[in-house]
Structure formats: C-alpha cells, structure tokens
C-alpha cells in the first residue's frame, strides 16, 4: 500500500465516510450516486469528510459529479498488474484505504459488486455488515441506527449496527440520488494497490457481451406477463404489444417456473429490478416476490381478469377482463392511433 508521495498522512483528515463508487458506460453508476447520498448523510453535522474510492482513473465529468455530491477526497485505485474485477483484490484496496484514513464508515451500492465487496470486507475484519440500507445515522461513535430492506423491500427493518468502521450497502431502489446542497471541490488522489496471490484466486477472466434488444433493467416501458397469460403461446400477443411500444417483456416467477419464459426476463426479488416509466402488468396477481422488483416503476397499469387481485392495490390504473381479448385490442388501438 502506498500513497502519492506529495502528501503525508498528517495532511489527510482522519475519520470520514468512505464510499466505493462504481462506474458504467455513462460515468458514475446511478446506484453509486444513491450510495454517495446516504454516505453524505452519515458525514453529518460534525463535518466528517465524504471520501470516494473509484477503481481506475477519473474523467473530468466524473470528478464534477463527485463534487456535486459533496465528495471532498476521491481516491483513484490503481492495481499492479490487475485490470479486471476481483472481489478480493478490490476489497483489500478498500480496506487498506479505510485503515489508512481511519474511516468511520464504509458504504457501497447494493449492487452485485457492492454486496460482494462489502461481504469480503466484513469477512476479513469480522465486522457486521448491513445490506440494502434505506437510511442511517450515528447513535454514538461506535453504533449506527439504520433501516434496511428485507424480503426484497417488502419489509423494512429498523436495526442497530455496532462496529467501526460501520459497513453498509445502500438499497438501489430505496434511496434517491440527491446532489449536495453545498458542492465541494474534490481533491483527486491516487492509491496504488498490489493484490496478493490470495486476492488473485478470483478474477474475471473474460467478459462475454450478450448485447441485443432492450435491457429489462433499463427499459423505459416494460410489458409484464404472469400466470394469467395461460401458456407459452399466450405470450405471442404480449410480444407483439411490447414490440409496438418498444418495450422489454418481463415475467413473474410463476412463468419462469413453468418454463414458459427464460429467467432473464423475470421481474422480482430473485429476478431483475425494473424502473420504467410504464409497467403494464398483464395477468400478474401481485405476490410480494414480484412487487419487490417493480417498486421503482413510475406508472403502473394492470390488466387482470380478477378485480380483487392484490396488484390492483399497487397499480395506478386497471383494465379488468380477458387478456386474450384486451391485449390484441390494445395493440390495434395503438396502431390505429399512430396512423392518424
């Protein structure tokens, strides 16, 4: 572990909240901006520094975003002879940083990588880790009062976490990304990390791009189908409607369990979480398992034969009746609306 030589340890404020920030094609990942928002709250009135750790070098617009979110110090982590993701190596780097900084808390997004890395940090230190937090505040210097999602967000747990640094991940569909009311100039520093042989046991060896089609997680419109669609063949009309709307098709667990559709299309607690402008849920009763995946949808419409289905208490609008009649009629109405 080494720090850029131009700074000494005494120049670096001790304490603070360290947030692991992930990136995607558009820069800093949205889930990480949510994590930064919760982490900033933990900096609180005593003025702890919000510190970001990013793997690789930061671009100018990314640095600007960090400033807007109130990040005082940003560490670009550079690995010796390691380019790909390695949960253990990344956890080592974060842990070294947290130890060097004397961080009071370590925060990551509730993403696959965020959960995994924080689990490694917890395992390495023996400290407790609270997953999918919605809010957190200090009780005293050693304990955090928090609320977190359980049952995929269908329940909230109020809990107390004891241990320093406090290890938290942030629910990706339960906290909004909010810029800081007082943006901060972000100082960029570099942290070099030399992964050990143990760290190198697990490294991504290849990236296989599946590409193609509208991704369910990012789709602006999702047409959902449940047990009420009736059969594999029944999805023909849904596919047609989805194509008309430029939508992705999402399904309930009952549908994938029946083998009608692949699991990659499953929306829910054990499938994909969606956040579209419109979720049109057809023949889906509304089990908590499914609702856990569509909590972030802006407008929810359900088409259901059963006017008493639980989904009707979560949807904004409903059409009651036979899917086999309503969906083709809806497709036809959209086509004729477009012609005029």
């Amino acid at each position, binding site marked *: 572990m080494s720090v850029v030589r131009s700074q000494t340890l005494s120049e670096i404020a001790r304490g603070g909240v360290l947030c692991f920030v992930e990136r995607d094609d558009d820069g800093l990942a949205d889930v990480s901006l949510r994590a930064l928002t919760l982490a900033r709250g933990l900096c609180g009135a005593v003025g702890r520094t919000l510190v970001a750790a990013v793997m690789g070098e930061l671009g100018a617009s990314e640095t600007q975003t960090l400033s807007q979110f109130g990040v005082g110090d940003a560490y670009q982590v550079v690995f010796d002879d390691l380019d790909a*993701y390695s949960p253990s190596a990344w956890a080592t780097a974060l842990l070294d940083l947290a130890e060097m900084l004397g961080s009071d808390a370590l925060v990551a997004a509730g993403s696959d990588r965020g959960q995994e890395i924080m*689990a490694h940090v917890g395992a390495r230190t023996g400290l407790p880790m609270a*997953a999918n937090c919605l809010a957190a505040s200090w009780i005293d210097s050693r304990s955090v009062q928090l609320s977190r999602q359980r049952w995929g967000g269908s329940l909230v747990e109020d809990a107390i976490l004891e241990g320093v640094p406090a290890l938290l991940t942030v629910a990706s569909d339960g906290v909004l990304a909010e810029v800081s009311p007082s943006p901060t100039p972000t100082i960029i520093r570099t942290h070099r990390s030399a992964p050990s042989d143990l760290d190198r046991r697990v490294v991504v060896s290849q990236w296989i791009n599946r590409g193609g089609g509208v991704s369910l997680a990012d789709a602006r419109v999702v047409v959902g189908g449940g047990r009420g669609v009736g059969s594999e063949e029944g999805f023909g009309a849904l596919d047609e409607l989805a194509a008309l709307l430029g939508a992705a098709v999402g399904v309930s667990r009952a549908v994938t369990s029946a083998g009608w559709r692949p699991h990659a299309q499953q929306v829910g607690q054990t499938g994909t979480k969606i956040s579209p402008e419109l979720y049109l849920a057809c023949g889906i009763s509304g089990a908590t398992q499914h609702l856990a995946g569509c*909590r972030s949808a802006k407008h929810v419409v359900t088409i259901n034969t059963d006017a008493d289905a639980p989904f009707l208490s979560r949807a904004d609008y409903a059409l*009651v009746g036979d899917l086999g009649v309503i969906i083709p009629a809806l497709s036809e109405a959209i086509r004729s609306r477009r012609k005029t």
Partner: protein
Amino acid sequence: MNVLVCVKRVAMVGSRIVLTADEREVDVRQLGFTMSPHEECAVEEAIRIVEHHGGIVTVMTLGPSEASEQLRDAASLGATRLVHLVSDGREWDPVATAEAIVSAVWSLEAGSGSFDLILFGNEAADSGDYQVGVRVAQALGRPSVSGVKRLEVGEHALEARREYRGGEELYEISLPCVIAVKEGINLPRYPSLPGRMRAKKVIVEEIPVEWREGSLRTVKLRVPEERHDRAEVLGVGVDGVGALVALFEQWGILA
C-alpha cells in the same frame, strides 16, 4: 465430487406480509414454508453435478426443529446426506450464522473428507444479508464468487458465470471453493414419488447450536409506507382500451 449446500427455511409470504404484535417477526401462523428460491436452485445444481461426476450431496440448514422439513425436501430431490444445526428458532445474524456453519464444516470434513464445493443461495429471501457464503469462504480460506448463474464443474476447477451489465463475467476457480448461486442457474426439478418415499427414510444428523447476540440487532420490522389505494379501473373488457391509449399518449409512451 463432495458437495455441500446450505439452505434456510423461510416463510412463503404470498401477497401481503403480516407482523407479530411485537413487530419483531413475520406472523407465520397462516403460512407455509420453503427454502429460499436461490437455494432451491443450489440444491438442484448440486444434484446435477453429482449426477454427472458421481459423489455425494450433503444439505445443511441452521434453524428450528421444523427446518428438517426443508432438508427432507432436498432429499426428495436427490440429496444424500442431511445435517441440521438445530436452533431455538430465534433469528441469527450473518456473522454468527457463518461461524456455526464453519464449525459444522470442520467437523463434517474431519469425519468424511473435504467438500470440493460448498454452495449457497446468493441471499436468503427473508433477511437478504448477501454475505454468509463469503464469510464462510474466508474462514475456510477458500475462494468464492457470488451471484453465479452458470456453473461448469471440472475435476480440479470450475467455470462460473454471472451477469454484469447486459453481459456475463467468466471466472475460473480452483476447487475447493464456495459459490453463491442465483435463481435462473437452472430450473429445479419436482420431487418424484419414489424420491419422497426415500426422503422419509434418510437420517437427519442433528448438531445443537447455541444462539448468540450479533452486532446487527433488529429493533423492529415494519411494512413500508407505500400506496395501498385501489387502482382506478378504466373499464371492463375492451371498454377501457381507449382511455388507456390516451394515458399512454399523456405519459409520452407512444412518442
């Protein structure tokens, strides 16, 4: 191939979760139980691996005496050995859970050899902690990967894949190791009638475990504040289609 799968008994909560009067637990009096969905797939994966390579599938759970039901479910699908860490029914935090599993693994391995592979579900349906597998791997000094949706097991190593941003990451890991899988890695089979009969006869090995207070402590549970008002019904049958298309236009969906 010697494979261990760790599973957790969880309630089937249906469409609405009801809490006990003290708001510390889910009221399970009207509910059935299952193992967490990711773990059903872990059991299925272990059985497939052993069908292909030969070997033994051991399934272990930490839970109240009733959790033997989930072990027998696993046996009805093809698990050969069942181990029950019998608790008093209180909830265990992930650190204590991992420690209890690690002690049990040591004692099982001392008796009948090392597990080539230990499988977990990515996270339990109820507590959603995302960490027990990693903690167990760390304590055992074995490599681990979470979120795995495809496994190809060789004699000394395995290939694991997981989804990442519209693609797949490939990992090559030497055995023994710990893998946390996600639903979708396979489509679990249904138990056969002979399987169910056989499961009744499998001996459940019981190891008592003592609960201890963790450093992540539940104060209370609550149902999140979400809207529960009824949807506005636009129409019955095709009557509402016109109104729905108008809403789509208003929301900019048809643009």
